[in-house]
């Protein structure tokens, strides 16, 4: 695996197709071809060079664009399969059996197979992750393998190329010109107007512009790698918080996942569009669909534990009042709290009358706040009601006692002691919804009068330290694709050969028509030989000879 020495004296690495300096074809393939392959400037891609060890073989595998495209295709197909049926995280189930049952019930045998093959959790499956990992590896290796030789050969290129290089370009022209010196001078001037960088050496011009666009692919690949790194970092504790919590109106609660912060729900609002405000514009649509939600909103107050205070202490300071609506999360210290869900109408207060049974006369009323009941309710006029028992989610009598199955006031029940001037020793009564129990016949009773409800906000708490890394990745990617795709690397070679003929050749990595447009303009101001585009047999040759420019 020795270097290849070109006739011009330059030593090229093994595998080089075109001499890095003068462009002479070196390989048999290049010598035989009519138009040389200018990808990577005919430089030696490292992967083509060595394949002695197993490491080299793996390396070469990932370096191949064919493999790269195959991996892209595999990710694409896997992603598509994942959208056939809903993914795991959109399915209301928790256990494996429930998942299986869900897919089987809705999608039959195909659904069952979908579950069994693991497609129901496609994007978290080990093989999907391996595919993405291989894609990342391929991006890195293929880029390294190409960018270095390309850089070297663009740096080493010489102004004067060997005629065999010129003749093998896609755009090439040759002819005798009356005054070559003048032609070259004029061409140089015109090319400068086109913003080309000119290199001139005795009787040869190399005009080049937008070489930086050649680095575009490598820049955008770097962006993708940065993005991948960001995604990986989310797995590290502390980089990423994703929690949900229910917060009742009036409730103040520690924010899950955000240590030291407490949130109070001052009220949840659900608004629909009304006919009046929506005017005639939305009228037709509202008639069809019924109602459309206008706003979900939770009014909150954020508190922060004071510096030095311990978790749990009441030593809080108010940070701010805020209305969380969809698209406008509450943000603080890297955290965001989103309005995600809601539940309406949970019981919040119950109002009762104390009545004398026989006369049905009310001695007054009292309201029990179910989230913060009191021990004693003073009705004035010497009557009080004591709370002896409170069962927010009453579920029958267990072991001789009323039993509450949860702390949520779904079905509140109470034991009240009614103290009245008549019965100062008090009477006891058990009150549940639609039910009253008394140990012995009482003279007084607590009668339900009214209830009030409250709403519950479903909030999501997020913190993602990797967002800026991801954003940077996206930005670098965009710079890379714009640099690589919105500019073209163009080169024009003009030189006088040993027989006094003028040779012209041109190359661009894309958009040949635009390059030809430029060449045609160039030929208007400098006497240069006509050229041919050897990949466009349909090109009307007459037009090029003419004065009129067809492309503008």
């Amino acid at each position, binding site marked *: 695996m020795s270097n290849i020495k070109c006739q011009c004296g330059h030593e090229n690495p093994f595998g080089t197709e075109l001499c890095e300096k003068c462009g002479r074809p070196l390989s048999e393939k290049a010598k035989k071809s009519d138009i040389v392959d200018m990808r990577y400037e005919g430089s030696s891609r490292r992967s083509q060079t060595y394949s002695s060890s197993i*490491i080299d073989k793996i390396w070469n595998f990932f370096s191949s664009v064919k493999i790269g495209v195959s991996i892209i295709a595999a990710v694409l197909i896997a992603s598509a399969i994942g959208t056939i049926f809903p993914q795991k995280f959109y399915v209301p189930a928790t256990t494996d059996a429930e998942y299986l049952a869900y897919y089987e019930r809705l999608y039959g045998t195909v659904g069952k197979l979908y579950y069994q093959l693991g497609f129901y959790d496609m994007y978290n499956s080990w093989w999907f992750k391996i595919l993405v990992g291989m894609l990342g590896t391929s991006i890195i290796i293929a880029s390294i393998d190409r960018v270095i030789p390309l850089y070297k050969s663009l740096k080493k290129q010489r102004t004067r190329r060997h005629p065999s290089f010129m003749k093998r370009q896609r755009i090439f022209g040759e002819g005798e010109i009356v005054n070559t010196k003048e032609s070259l001078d004029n061409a140089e001037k015109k090319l400068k107007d086109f913003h080309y960088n000119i290199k001139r050496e005795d009787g040869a011009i190399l005009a080049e512009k937008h070489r930086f666009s050649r680095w575009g692919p490598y820049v955008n690949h770097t962006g993708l790698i940065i993005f991948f790194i960001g995604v990986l970092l989310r797995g590290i504790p502390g980089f990423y918080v994703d929690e949900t919590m229910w917060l009742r109106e009036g409730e103040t609660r520690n924010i899950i996942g955000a240590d030291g912060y407490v949130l109070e729900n001052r009220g949840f609002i659900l608004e629909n569009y009304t006919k009046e405000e929506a005017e005639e514009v939305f009228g037709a649509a509202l008639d069809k669909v019924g109602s459309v939600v206008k706003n979900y909103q939770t009014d909150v107050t954020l508190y922060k534990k004071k510096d030095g205070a311990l978790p749990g202490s009441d030593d809080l300071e108010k940070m701010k009042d805020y209305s969380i609506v969809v698209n406008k999360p509450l943000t603080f210290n890297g955290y965001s709290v989103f309005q995600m869900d809601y539940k309406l109408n949970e019981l919040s207060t119950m109002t009762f009358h104390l009545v004398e049974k026989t006369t049905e006369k009310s001695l007054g009323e009292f309201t029990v706040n179910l989230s913060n009941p009191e021990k004693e309710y003073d009705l004035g006029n010497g009557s009080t009601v004591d709370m002896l028992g409170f069962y927010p989610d009453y579920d029958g009598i267990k072991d001789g006692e009323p039993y509450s199955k949860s702390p949520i006031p779904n079905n509140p029940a109470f034991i009240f002691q009614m103290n009245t001037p008549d019965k100062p020793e008090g009477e006891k009564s058990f009150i549940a919804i639609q039910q009253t129990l008394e140990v012995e016949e009482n003279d007084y009773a607590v009668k339900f009068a009214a209830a009030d409800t409250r709403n519950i906000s479903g909030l999501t708490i997020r913190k993602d330290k990797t967002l800026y890394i991801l954003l940077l990745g996206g930005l670098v990617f965009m710079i890379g694709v714009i640099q690589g795709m919105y500019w073209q690397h163009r080169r024009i070679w003009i030189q006088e050969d040993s027989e006094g003929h003028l040779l012209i050749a041109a190359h661009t990595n894309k958009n040949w028509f635009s390059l030809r447009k430029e060449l045609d303009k160039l030929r208007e101001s400098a006497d240069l030989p006509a050229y041919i585009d050897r990949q466009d047999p349909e090109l009307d040759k007459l037009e090029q000879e003419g004065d009129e420019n067809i492309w503008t």
Partner: protein
Amino acid sequence: MAKKVNKKKNRLIFRTVLLVIMAAIIVYAITSKDKVTVLAEGDKAPDFELVDLDGNAHRLSDYKGEGVFLNFWGTWCPPCKKEMPHMEDMYKDFEAKGVNILTVNVGEPKVKIELFRDDMGLSFPMLWDKNKTVMDLYNIKPLPTTFLINPEGKIIKIIKQGMTEEQIREFLESIQPK
């Protein structure tokens, strides 16, 4: 020639290192689950400050050098209720031996807890975590959950179920200062 061999060797090292890194990343991505920092046995018990029903503030750090039997509970939870009388029975004895029983109610209305206490005749400190801060701090999922904290302030055991009288005694003894 030596230079060439060297170059070849460097290339092999570079390629090997890069491929190993990529393989490691893939393995890491597959094996890592969404990690939440959960307290585990052996961790230092995080300090907190809560008031009990009588309005007295308790800090975990107040009990440095003594054992703490930290019990999270709710009134609606039958196993919580069941173990309370045993804790009441042993509370005084063990307090003298340098082991404290602290119970934390997970944010129920104060009156509800008071009714419960009076009903059961309990006298040990009942801390009230009204904002559920300490509950979140200790990642409480099932109730009851009990943390055994030794005199050095380390969590030596987390019990995520109800306990019998003997178990409670055993656990209390295990965090007794020597």
